[in-house]
């Protein structure tokens, strides 16, 4: 447990810097060291609640994360997470390695971000978006101005978030990169609102998934406790050094980590076939 705690701290830090989250990195590492994949996934889900709740607390207080949009989207992610976690308890572990590797590939969507527009308030916003007042504003420190935005295509965005929730529940991760992509490209939210709101939603999605694992006997205290402590400490440290690293360095780190994790999970899957 002590070595898992020690490993979890730098992993939490790298997870925070790359935006992948600690669980996405730690689960393949635990599998590499012989931890059963379903126990690793269930423990990852619990650590996601800790890291997400810890960082979301600050974003909500600063009013960058949009609580109303988050609550609307949580209807979809929580249902998806329960379905995903149930699938994991039922299927053979070997498929999980391949699903994990495939879903990690969607993280590359993060590298293909389009430049953000200056205006985030579409003229013809949907009726549902108006009815639910899926809108907000925040003060952007970099641009030194108040950014006003509204969520576009909320139903399609909700469906995208259900897929994200399903993957999160199934693989024990936050699926943050996928959630951010849905919010930026479908709901057309500003990047900062998308990433902080995603962080807020991740904790609720993880709770929905964890509730399924509670009955299945995959929640291992000797894995969960050190993992939750270590990844949360690492994520806190990551948040402090993030602004000191340049974007190119972060993208390089992200690329190397994701490729290594994909190779490791594919290898494990092929070896278990």
């Amino acid at each position, binding site marked *: 447990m002590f070595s898992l705690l020690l490993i979890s701290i730098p992993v939490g830090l790298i997870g925070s810097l790359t935006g992948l989250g600690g669980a996405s990195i730690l689960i393949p590492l635990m599998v590499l060291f012989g*931890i059963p994949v379903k126990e690793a996934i269930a423990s990852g889900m619990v650590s996601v609640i800790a890291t997400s*709740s810890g960082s979301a607390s600050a974003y909500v*207080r600063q*009013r960058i994360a949009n609580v109303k949009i988050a609550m609307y989207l949580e209807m979809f992610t929580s249902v998806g997470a*329960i379905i995903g976690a149930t699938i994991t308890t039922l299927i053979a572990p070997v498929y999980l390695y391949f699903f994990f590797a495939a879903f990690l590939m969607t993280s590359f969507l993060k590298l293909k971000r389009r430049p953000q527009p200056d205006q985030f308030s579409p003229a013809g916003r949907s009726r549902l978006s108006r009815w639910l007042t899926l809108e907000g504003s925040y003060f952007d420190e970099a641009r030194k101005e108040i950014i006003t935005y509204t969520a576009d295509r909320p139903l399609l965005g909700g469906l995208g978030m259900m897929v994200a929730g399903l993957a999160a529940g199934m693989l024990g991760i936050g699926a943050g990169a996928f959630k951010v992509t849905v919010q930026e490209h479908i709901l057309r939210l500003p990047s900062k609102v998308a990433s902080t709101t995603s962080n807020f939603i991740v904790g609720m999605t993880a709770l929905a998934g964890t509730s399924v694992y509670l009955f299945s006997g995959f929640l291992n205290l000797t894995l969960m406790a050190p993992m*939750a402590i270590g990844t949360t400490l690492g994520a806190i440290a990551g948040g402090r050094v993030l602004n000191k690293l340049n974007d190119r360095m972060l993208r390089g780190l992200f690329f190397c980590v994701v490729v290594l994790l994909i190779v490791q999970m594919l290898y494990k899957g092929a070896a278990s076939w």
Partner: protein
Amino acid sequence: MVDRHGEGNGAGALEGLISYILITGVVISLFLEAAGLVLFYRSSGTLAISHGGRVIIRAEDFFALLGQLFSAASSGWPLRLMTLGIAVLILTPYARALLSVIYFACQRNFKYLAVTLFVVIILTVSLLVH
């Protein structure tokens, strides 16, 4: 009028309360888990990862798990503290969802009362039924 912090979603008081609940829950949970780990090492002399028996949390439902925690037949204090830490962690987002329901009910915002109530019902059912 929008201040320097923006208006987020027009529910400033709710945001403050949610932020407080989240950070309090995480701090209490991690403290309990850390205390459980230290006591576990002191009582067993090892911090080896185990894959069976007492270290696996398994319960009929979440509330049965809470009941087990306080029953005489439950495992020793180290594992009990770690389980309590996990239970607090699970309850943290649940508590903020419950708080949102109460907030929107007090505000008579029936649209968001329905949205948050849906999430709470889904979570409650998932914690009770398997």
